[in-house]
């Protein structure tokens, strides 16, 4: 509850809808609000009556930005609505941010007005926030199927601590709404990035190949990229993480960073000035920023300008100085202009023609300290970027302090 537990000192509470959102039919707005009141009246002695003029206890309105109280709204997302505890004047009033997309459905493309109204009316009746995940009074919006919506016991305990149970033995506190509300199906695919409350359940993927030993002399890599000053080495579902901040090599799994990405990348590279890493697998690619996957991915690699004959790439590396990314396929390579987001003319070219001493396909590529490192099997080839000249050959895992 709110401090000093403000409540309505009567059982008959009035409400008035001052205006409407253009996002929905007025009838749908009125129905959503009426159902939200019904939710609370079914578990308390309170009765709610709608009035159409003058001052009501609970005044409901839609507004954007500054709207006459000290709590301006913040545009799309962020704060969706707020409401005041019982009292005179603004007390009990509920305000909804018109910059949101309001809907009667339960989808990711808008906020369900019934759910948000029911939450805000909890405040209008005197409830504060609950930290019980799944309770209606939990502060964060959860897209929930609202057919047969039921109050969480925590909500019922809270409101009945203020007003007691309903007088007559009414329907059980669970609210069985007639399934009259068509809910737009929530898109089948789950949101790609993990929402913070879900912990990756320990999936038991089909038994992945064992993690090779760091200093296995035959160790090869699928892909390698930098990421915000660190270097990540990928093999099957495993990642080795080399950081300038720690001396130890950290061993992780791809799943622990990007649970929805598939293992076994073909290539990866970082465009540092966009804080973006791109991962390639077969004829698709993903873009991530830190832990979150950019929306709209995966995309076909043809979007980058590859001919349809190219079904996968072997390796990729971004040259920070020239803002060009080199893609390696078989014995050829392409140059992609990150500024114009297009393949450069005159490509593909033979790798051996431009990188003397590199006469075989490349598994993975890395740019570090003014050199390219091309990995092929258990060897890596250090190449001077400017002169495109082979400098030396080392074991692939020389980065692991073996």
């Amino acid at each position, binding site marked *: 509850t709110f401090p000093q537990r403000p409540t309505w000192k009567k059982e008959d509470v009035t409400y008035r809808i001052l205006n409407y959102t253009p996002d929905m039919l007025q009838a749908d707005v009125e129905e959503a609000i009426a159902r939200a009141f019904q939710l609370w009246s079914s578990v308390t002695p309170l009765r709610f009556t709608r009035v159409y003029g003058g001052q009501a206890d609970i005044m409901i309105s839609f507004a954007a930005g500054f709207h006459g109280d000290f709590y301006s709204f913040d545009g799309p997302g962020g*704060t*969706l609505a707020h409401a005041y505890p019982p009292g005179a004047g603004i007390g009990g009033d509920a305000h909804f941010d018109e910059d949101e997309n309001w809907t009667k459905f339960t989808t990711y493309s808008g906020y369900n007005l019934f759910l948000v109204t029911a939450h805000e009316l909890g405040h209008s009746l005197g409830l504060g926030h609950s*930290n019980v995940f799944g309770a209606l009074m939990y502060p964060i*919006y959860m897209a929930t199927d609202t057919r047969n919506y039921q109050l969480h016991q925590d909500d019922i305990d809270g409101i009945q601590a203020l007003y007691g149970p309903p007088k007559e033995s009414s329907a059980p506190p669970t609210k069985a709404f007639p399934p009259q509300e068509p809910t737009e199906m929530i898109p089948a695919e789950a949101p790609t990035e993990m929402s913070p*409350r879900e912990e990756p359940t320990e999936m038991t993927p089909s038994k992945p190949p064992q993690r090779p030993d760091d200093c296995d002399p035959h160790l090869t890599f699928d892909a390698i990229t930098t*990421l*915000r000053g660190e270097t990540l080495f990928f093999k099957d579902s495993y990642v080795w993480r080399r950081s300038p901040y720690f001396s130890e090599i950290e061993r992780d799994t791809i799943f622990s960073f990007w649970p929805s990405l598939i293992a076994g990348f073909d290539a990866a590279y970082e465009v540092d000035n966009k804080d973006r890493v791109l991962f390639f697998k077969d004829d698709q690619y993903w873009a991530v920023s*830190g832990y979150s996957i950019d929306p709209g991915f995966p995309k076909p690699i043809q979007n980058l300008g590859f001919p349809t004959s190219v079904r996968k790439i072997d390796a990729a590396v971004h040259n920070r100085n020239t803002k060009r990314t080199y893609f390696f396929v078989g014995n050829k390579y392409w140059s992609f202009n990150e500024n114009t987001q297009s393949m450069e003319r005159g490509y593909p070219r033979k790798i051996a023609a431009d990188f003397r001493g590199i006469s075989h396909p490349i598994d993975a590529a890395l740019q570090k300290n003014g050199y390219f490192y091309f990995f092929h099997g258990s060897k890596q080839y250090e190449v001077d970027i400017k002169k495109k000249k082979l400098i030396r050959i080392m074991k692939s895992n020389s980065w692991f302090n073996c």
Partner: protein
Amino acid sequence: FPVAPEKEKEDMQFAKKYLENFYEFKEEKTLFKAKDLNQMSDKIREMQSFFGLEVTGELNPKTLDMMKQPRCGIPDVRSYS
């Protein structure tokens, strides 16, 4: 992962605003930067505890993600005003 530097500043500003709005964080400019950071860490701990996150007092990615979720504008804690 390390956070891209300019993003780190943005995130810090965002978190300050969030804690002011919902956890009664008041940034009192003191001479001691450490004291400001402690105040903020305390409020981050309060928010992490409310949402059942690991209580570290640090603005880590999970805490920041939680702050960015769409939500109600009423504070989670408040001395009535």
